[in-house]
Structure formats: structure tokens, C-alpha cells
């Protein structure tokens, strides 16, 4: 279920930045905002229009953790593993979610593209540790059980949305 790329949209983004190679980071951000990841198909287009090699774009896209080259789930769950969260046991809740979803450190997205589980260094909400976010909504003071409940709730929400 790879998002099909609308090249007109990509071109609009490029036009916004006046086809300037120097704006590659902002351009990638906008593309990611649109597709939740940076589809491989846009690389040749960016390369041609910005006059930079696909390898260079790949270099930028893999340097910053925020960019993803793989389609992400509908719900992107980011578990904070900053010092505060780590000390307050963020790992057990991370492991619980991975186990329930059949994910790991390398496989971060479920095959049905519903969930993506990632870690982030510090969300900057240490007072609420341990913290996770779902599509940028913050869930404070989590535990493994609370995380399981959250997954169940999100699944239900998704079903409702479909029906």
C-alpha cells in the first residue's frame, strides 16, 4: 500500500522553495508531511529538478533521524528513551508494544501499516516521564499495561473509522 506519489504536488513543494538545492531539508520535510515518509519515487524527480545526485539526497535523508524512507503506520508511536524516561522504565513499555505488534528495533512498522513504533532521544517532557506520543499527541506517565490499553483503543478507533 505504498502511497502513490502525485508529482504535481511534489512540484508545488519544489516551486515553493524555488527549486533551490539549499532547501533540500525543508523540501524533504514537506514531502514527508504529505506522505508520512519520503517515497523512493520522488528521488529521481528531486535529483533532476534540484541538480543534486540521488545519492546526496539519500545522504541527507538518512542523516536525520526524523526522515523515514519507509511508509509509516497510520499511528506513529514514539517512545521517549531520554534519560528521565529511561530511568522511569520506558523500555518495558516499549518492549510490550513491540511484542504485541510483532515489531522490533529493525522492523518498526506493522504489515497492515497501522502502527509504527519508534524510539526518540528526548521529547523534552521529562516531567511527565515516561512519555510516548501518538501522531504528536502526548501520553504521559505510561506503563506497559497502559500501553497495551492504548494499542487496543487505537485499533478500535481505526475499525470505527472504517465502518
Amino acid at each position, binding site marked *: 500500500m505504498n502511497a502513490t506519489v502525485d508529482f504535481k504536488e511534489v512540484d508545488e513543494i519544489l516551486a515553493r522553495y524555488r527549486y533551490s538545492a539549499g532547501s533540500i531539508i525543508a523540501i524533504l520535510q514537506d514531502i514527508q508531511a504529505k506522505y508520512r515518509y519520503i517515497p*523512493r519515487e520522488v*528521488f529521481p524527480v528531486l535529483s533532476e529538478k534540484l541538480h*543534486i*545526485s*540521488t*545519492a*546526496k*539526497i*539519500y*545522504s541527507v535523508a*538518512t*542523516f536525520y533521524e526524523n526522515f523515514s*524512507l519507509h511508509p509509516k503506520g497510520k499511528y506513529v508511536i514514539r517512545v521517549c528513551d531520554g534519560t528521565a524516561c529511561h530511568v522511569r522504565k520506558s523500555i518495558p513499555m516499549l518492549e510490550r508494544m513491540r511484542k504485541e505488534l510483532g515489531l522490533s528495533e529493525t522492523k518498526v512498522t506493522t504489515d497492515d501499516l497501522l502502527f509504527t513504533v519508534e524510539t526518540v532521544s528526548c521529547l523534552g517532557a521529562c516531567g511527565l516521564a515516561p512519555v510516548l506520543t501518538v501522531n504528536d499527541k502526548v501520553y504521559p506517565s505510561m506503563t506497559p499495561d497502559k500501553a497495551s490499553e492504548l494499542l487496543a483503543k487505537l485499533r478500535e478507533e481505526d475499525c470505527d473509522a472504517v465502518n
Partner: protein
Amino acid sequence: MSTEFMMIDNMPVEIAGEQNILAVIRKAGIELPTFCYYSELSVYGACRMCVVEDKSGEIHASCSTPPQAGMEIRTNTPRLRKYRKMILELLLANHCRDCTTCEKNGKCKLQELAQRFGIKQVRFSNTAGDPELDTSSLAIVRDKSKCILCGDCVRMCEEVQNIGAIDFAHRGSKMTISTAFDEPIAATKCIGCGQCAAVCPTGAIVVKNDTAKLWKDLSDRNAKVVVQIAPAVRVGVGAELGLAEGDNVMGKIVAALRRLGFDEVFDTTTGADLTVLEEAGEFLGKVQKGEKLPLFTSCCPAWVKYAELNHPELMENISTCRSPMQMFGAVLKEHYSHSNRRVVVVAIMPCTAKKQEAARDEFKEAGVPYVDYVITTQELVQMIREAGIVFSEIEPEAVDMPFGATSGAGVIFGVTGGVTEAVIRRISDDKSVPALRAIPFSGVRGLQGVKETSLDYHGREVKIAIVSGIKNAENLIKKMQRGEKYYDFVEVMACPGGCICGAGQPVTDSEGKKRRSAGLYETDRMSTIKRSEENPVIMALYGGLLKGKVHKLLHVHYHGKA
């Protein structure tokens, strides 16, 4: 302005416009170690091998520090030695240490520096990964596990060749040199120029080795193995085989090849003479008919591939002439077509892209290539060594009949501007000796990347550009397309300096390149036959073997993507 000096290890050394202290240090005769510095590339400053200490004990990377009058630096303090050893140990901890089986054995900078700094043990635990080979290219082989992340290949590919097939990817401990999405290098816009391999200090990028195939054919009694040797090869092996860099040792190469078991030995210069006549004819035809110009040369397969991938609009401007290697390959296959043995045509080339050219469909007849395969100058050196031939002792011999005669015009193909000079000799109205002697001073010679010249043809000024290095070619094309420049004839060689600096040649420095160039021009000076059309072999070919087959055997229509 008075001269400026700085102190290097207590010696006063003049500063003469050097961009960085490293250059001053090397001028002073100190071979400071480096991994990531090449004068022709931008400064990266990552390897830290080039460190020096200033008066106050502060450490600087000399490659990225500009010299200043009165500066006092030391290059070899206990601290610096310790620092360098540490870097080497860290690199080695993460590097395969099976040197004996590495393609780069004996030529690896990491190996050389480890030896030079007396690294006998590595204090860190070994974290070297398994080989990660990419054998998709016919020109180069990559093994990521041997990469030390100096970035030389990246900058070469991008800055000099304008390709950018590879770049850094990921970060921290996961950092590698990668194509986009880690796809095989053959799937990228790589043109196979091999310049990345020429600068890679380790075995992480090497030229593909095809000697095993050749040894097998040489020992096959049912095979007739015929070889052609490119102009640049004869001035490229000297230093490796105990003679002087840049000396023309063609005679010795011929003798060595016979000992290796080749049945017939020829000179690609013969093919170059054919190219001169065909290309000059094509050019004049276009001028006379008022057809679209410029005409771009087609001898360099890396350039042809670049144009195919990036400038399809220029393909109609690229000469239909096959490269000298392919012209001659076709002639040889035709000549031996009635042999009762399997005929194998091998070409010894300074070039990695020729390996790809030989495999192109356009250069096959009924699936059989005109040139079966290519080995580089480096591979030739390796075979001569392997056979135990003492090159310095061997008596020179001449190439075989019936293609024994060559011209000086053909031999200078090996250096940037050579093709152009050869064509000028052919087409200029004035065939007098003084006119011939004046050509070298018209701007065609020299190793610089962009040259211009012009000549008078029947009262019309013919404008010519000569570029080497694909970035230079690209810049020129842009200027032409914007209408800022106009040329009638453009010679392009992908390797900066031309074939003598090809990635298949043993690596040399800028002095060595000059010597190689001088070696070819000297050969030209010593040739009785100066112009391609005066070569009796060529005339015999047109009257015989090539009759009615000129187009079929000497020209090509590229079908697009290689």
C-alpha cells in the same frame, strides 16, 4: 613583496601561495601521511593523519590550516606520533586484516601507513565486518567493509566527475559510503570511469580484475589470443616495473606479451589512425553540408555513457566513430574470421570504462564481441610479475604484421588534446613542416582540464574545445547550451589529463602524469609517420579488408542506455 617564511621542524620554508600548511610541509620534503587529502579535491579534513603541533602545543589538521608568515610548527613530536598511531589502530580495529588476499595488497595506504608507523598490534577489539561486495559493475568492485570513510571517492565522483553516484549515508557508527537506497552501483548513473578506485586508499573500491579469464584463454590451445595495446599503456608501466615513469616501453611490453603466450600482438594506435581518418571525414562532411555542429569525440566510453545518461539531446552530436579499440577490434575479428581456432581479441587499456564498452551490445556481432574483454595496465603489470618476467632485462620487440605500422598522430591519443591534434594534422590546409611544428603551440597540449584552439579551414574559422574531467565537460556543455560559447569540435575525455591518467593505469602523481605525457609526445617526435593518412597499413586496409565495410566495422549507432 618580500618572501614569507614559516618554520617547519626548525627549518625555514618559503610560503609561495600554498593553500594549506600540508602543501608547504610536503614541499619541504616531509611526506606527511594523509588519507583524505588530494590537491585536486576539496578539503575534507576528516582523517586527522595530517596533524601538526604549533608552538603552544596546539594540534592542527595541516590540510585545512592556511600557512602564515612566522608560523612555527612541528610535524613529528611524540604526541603526534602517538596520535597517528591511535588513528591507525582505530581504523585497523574496524578493518579486515587479510591483506594477502586483498586486491589492494601492496598498494593500500592503510597497510603502508600501518607498516610505516610500526603498528604491531591493535589494542582495540576487532569489530571488522564481513565483506560487503558490490560486483554489479564491469569496471569497479566495491567492498564496503574495507572503507575508512575518508570520502575521497565521494568528492572525486561529485567534484571532478559531476556524477555523485555515491555519498555518505546514515551517521555515527552506521555511517557508510552508499548509492541511493544502497542499490547496486551499476544501477546508478556511474559511468565506470574508475576515478573513485584511483583515489580510494584501501581495497574498498578497486578496479575489476579480469586476469583469470585471460590466463585461461592463454593456456587454451584451441584459442588464438590476439592482443592490442593502447597508446597510454606504454608510458604507464615503467615506474611499476623498475624503469623510469613515463618512458615508452612498448617494445618490452610486446616481448613480455609474447612470453605470456599471446599469439599476435598489435598496437591500438593503428585503430587510432583509423579513427582520425573517419572522424576528420565525418567532421568535414558536416562542415561542408552545413550540418549541425559541434561534433563531440566518441573515443572515451565513460564520456559516451555520461552523455547517454544525462544528455540524450547531445547524442546526435556525438561522432558515430567507434573508439580506436573498437575499430581495431572489428578489424581484427574480420581479419581472423577464417581462423580454425577460436579467436579471442583482448585489449590492454589504461581504462576501466573500456571494460564496459567491450560488453556493449552495439559492439557485438551475432552475440560475439569484437573485443572479447579488456584488462587494464595494472592487470598487465600484475601478470608480468606473476609470470616472473624480469621486465628491466627483457629485450624489446616489434609488433606483428600486417598491422605493424602506426603514426605519431595515433599515439598521442593517449593524452588530452591528442585526438584533436591528430585531427588537425589531418584537416589543416597547410601540410608543411613548419605548420605541423606550430600545432603544439596552438593550445592543444598540456594537462589542464579545459583548452581552446582554432584553425583555418578553407577560410572558415573552426573553433575547437578540449576538455578532460566530466565536470569540465558539463560546464562547457552548459555554456554552449546557454549560447555563451560556440565550438565546432569538442574533444572530451572523462579522466583528467586523458588516458595516461586513466583509472586502469598505475596510480601516479602530477609529476608522473607530466612524464607520461612527455613520453607520448616524444614517441610522436620519433615517428617517421606523423599523419594518420600517411600510414601505409591504413591505406591498405581501406583498399582491402574495409572495402564496403567501413560503416559496418568502424561506425556505431548507440541505442541509448548502456
